Each structure stands twice: as C-alpha cells, then as structure tokens.
C-alpha cells in the first residue's frame, strides 16, 4: 500500500477527506446563496434567468458544478461508510447512556441523510426540469436608452435550440432576449405549501449539520489555536448555521407569501 493510500484510509485520513470535501461544500453554500439572491429581484426573473443560463453554459462553471455534484455524493457516501465502520467499534451497546456531547455532533449521518434526500428532491425540482423538460420561455425587451425591461411570456409550445437567444433591433433601439423561464418554475413550485415546508425544514438540517460540521472540519485538519478557534466556531454558528440557512429558507417563504 502506498503511503498516500495508507494515510487516506487511516481513521484520521478518512476524516481528512470528510473535512476537505465538507469545506468545499461550504464554499458552494455561499456561492449558491449569493447567486440565488437574484430571485428576490423584482424584475420578472430577468437577472435570475440570465444567471441560470450563465451557470449552465459557461464551461468553467460547468466543470466546477460537476466536481461539486461528485463531491456531494462522495461526502455523503464516505460519511455513511465511516458511520458504519464506527458503529462496528461498539458491537455491544450500553443499557444507559447519558450524553455529554451535543445532539447535532452525534447525528451528523442522520442530518446528512436528510440533506441527501433534500438534494435529490431539489435537483429533480429545478435542475432536472431545466435540463430535460419543456420549460416555458420568456421574452425580455430592453429599451437600450432607458434600460426599461418589458417582460412577455412566450406562447405555450414555443421552443428554441439554445437556452438563450439574443437579438438587437437597432432601429427600435431595443435588445430582445428569449430564455428558458426557470424563475416562473421556481415561483410556481413554491406555491405548494408542502414543498415550502419541506424546504424550510431541510434548512434546519443544514443549520444543524453546519453547527457541528464547520468547526469540526478545522479540528480534523488540526487547525486548533486559542486565538483563531473561537473565530472559526463563531463563523460556523453565525454564518453557516444561522445566516445561510435563513437566506435559503427565505426563498420558498418569499414566493409562497409574497408572490
């Protein structure tokens, strides 16, 4: 066995892979949230639909997104494998257990499994539909001089080869963009209270998973220091377990209550 395999399959190495993939997924949480904040723009989905085209066509982003999908699956199944191995370390359990650790840290695999189910639903709700189903199209006509944008829904059955078709009408001074209308798919989906509830509850799972996971990744990397560890723990709790889940949960709630 080479030194690298030996390192990565040791108990510490296995956790190193969880920590590194976990921290990568943390950066994804930030980027995905910032991008999707465009859902809150009151522009008939102009910014969001253009963003969706960019995210699914720009080659570098495409590569990163496939790396991201792979790492999500790796993180999930490697985590379940470690959990399974850890269970084997105590074949006979206790009759009475009084826990002195926090409940989230003990249930990362349960929270992670909830998140995996959530991701499957989330991907089939939007990603799959965007890529594989006949989506409605929307036309944005922008007055170049004033920047005013007029939104027109395309008739049902309209389809085009590219996700985005742009044309310039110099005589009228307008720019026309026809794109797949993911925005209205999102808006329509979140009229379903059950889906909204499922999304919001899943964000609790994100919060609890991050509450333990973020600082735990640094501990696994060996990055513990009296000066910086409190900062890491603070970021883990306030940014990743509070701010980010609230940001995500706000999206279904916004569409359900305000749209």
């Amino acid at each position, binding site marked *: 066995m080479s030194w690298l395999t030996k390192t990565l399959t040791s108990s*510490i190495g296995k956790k190193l892979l969880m920590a590194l993939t976990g921290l990568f997924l943390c950066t994804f949480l930030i980027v995905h949230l910032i991008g999707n904040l465009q859902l809150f723009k009151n522009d008939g989905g102009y910014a969001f639909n253009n963003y969706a085209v960019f995210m699914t066509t720009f080659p570098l982003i495409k590569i990163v997104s496939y790396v991201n999908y792979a790492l999500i699956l790796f993180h999930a199944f490697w985590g379940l494998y470690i959990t399974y191995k850890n269970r*084997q370390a*105590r074949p006979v359990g206790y009759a009475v257990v009084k826990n002195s*650790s926090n409940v989230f840290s003990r249930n990362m695999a349960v929270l992670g499994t909830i998140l995996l189910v959530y991701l499957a639903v989330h991907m089939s709700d939007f990603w799959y539909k965007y890529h594989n189903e006949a989506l409605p199209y929307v036309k944005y006509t922008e007055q170049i001089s004033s920047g005013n944008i007029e939104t027109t829904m395309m008739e049902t059955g309209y389809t085009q080869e590219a996700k985005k078709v742009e044309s310039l009408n110099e005589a009228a001074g307008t720019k026309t963009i026809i794109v797949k209308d993911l925005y209205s798919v999102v808006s329509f989906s979140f009229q379903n209270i059950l889906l909204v509830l499922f999304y919001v509850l899943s964000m609790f799972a994100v919060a609890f998973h991050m509450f333990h996971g973020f600082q735990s990744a640094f501990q696994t990397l*060996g990055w513990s220091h009296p000066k910086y560890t409190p900062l890491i723990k603070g970021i883990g709790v306030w940014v990743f377990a509070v701010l980010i889940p609230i940001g995500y949960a706000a999206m279904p709630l916004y569409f359900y209550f305000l749209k």
Partner: protein
Amino acid sequence: MTINLKVWKQKNAKTSGSLETYKVDHVSPDMSFLEMFDVLNEKLVQENKEPIAFDHDCREGICGMCSMYINGQPHGPLEGVTTCQLHMRTFNDGDTIVVEPWRSKAFPVIKDLVVDRSAFDRIIASGGYVSVNTGNAQDANSLPIGKDKADMAFAAAACIGCGACVAACKNASAMLFVSAKVSQLALLPQGQPERESRALNMVAQMDAEGFGACTNTGACAAECPKEISLENIARLNREFLGASISSTGV
C-alpha cells in the same frame, strides 16, 4: 443509605452477559463507590455467591485501573473524578444505579465489569516512548523548555490511560488517549527524534485494534477524569498528517 444496583454480570469473554439486580444496605455516604462494591462482594461471598469482578488498584485516582460505566457515564456523574474517588454522598438513599463495563470492540469483557485494555498497551509499545541510549543522564537544565510548552505537555501527560474516552465516545474512538500520549512527547525536546514515526505508528496501531474514528463530538474530553483537552486531538491530527506528508518512508 440503601442503594439498588443493576450490575453487568458476564461469566467470560465467550458468554453473553446481562444486568443483575443487587440491594446494598448500610452504605455510608463517605464510602467510595468501590468500597460500596467491596461491602457488596463480602456479603455475596458470605452467602456463597459469586462476587462481582471489577478492576481497581491505587484507589487514589492516579492509576487508571477503575473502569465502571455508572448511570450512563464513565466514572460516574462527577467531572474530573475516577470511580475510586467518587463517593456515595453523590447519590441519594434508595437510588438505583446501573453499572456497566467499558463497551468497545477493542476492549473485550474478561468478566463482569473487567475489560481487557491491553490494546492501549500495544499502542504505547508502538511508539509512546522515547528511546534513550545508555550513558549518564545529562543535566536537566541543558534542555531549555518554555513554561507554556512544559505546561501543555504536563497536562497531556496527566492521562492515566483508563479508557473513559473510549467508553464515552459514540464511536468507541481512542483518539483522546492516543493524542495525549503523542502530545506529551511531541511538545518536548526529548520527543523530537521519534516524532514522526511515533505519530504514524501509534495511529496505525490504534486503527488495527478496532477503535472507531473521531467525529469531534467532544464526549471524551467531557468525561475524562484527568480533563485532557480536545486540543490534543487537533495536535494528533497535525502530527499524523504532517508526518504522513514529510516522513521519508514511502
């Protein structure tokens, strides 16, 4: 005081055990938990019954032999205390106390509450030492050590190897024990020559013994009778990963 006990009874490593109920009368609040077991065992012997097997040695909290999992916590409810230093005044008259052995694949039950902790000995033998060649000991002051480093090394060296960390961990992980043993030497000049091989070999032995992996729940440090800190686990991760990358062994 009268104490009702539910104690794990198991004939040997091959048989399966079960919780047996005992009633102990005339328990003094000043008795240690182990003395309460002594009283019970004397009574059992007089009644021609099998006494309960349990580990103990120094009875002053420094040897690491006592190993009872009391009401769901290793060494009972008090913080920073071994079972031998736990007194019956901590409990109330008429309490029912459940006593189980450490549970870990790497610590098989020998009999009743006695488990085989030689896995820890094998981990120590794999690297928890400094090699000292023959000759006179040099003057202690010729090795300058900063006070902060000395204090951290001393705090790690307080580990008595009782195995409460393994017992408390939901993964039966031995990381707190191994990290304390690696830390106490990694922090001191005497430990430098074998620093890399120590971290690599002790972790390899820990894994081979069948302990689980650390998931940073912190239960070990919370239950440790010597209050070994989780920072040691971070240091072990650093030592191990650093040694994996920089050591010349391929």
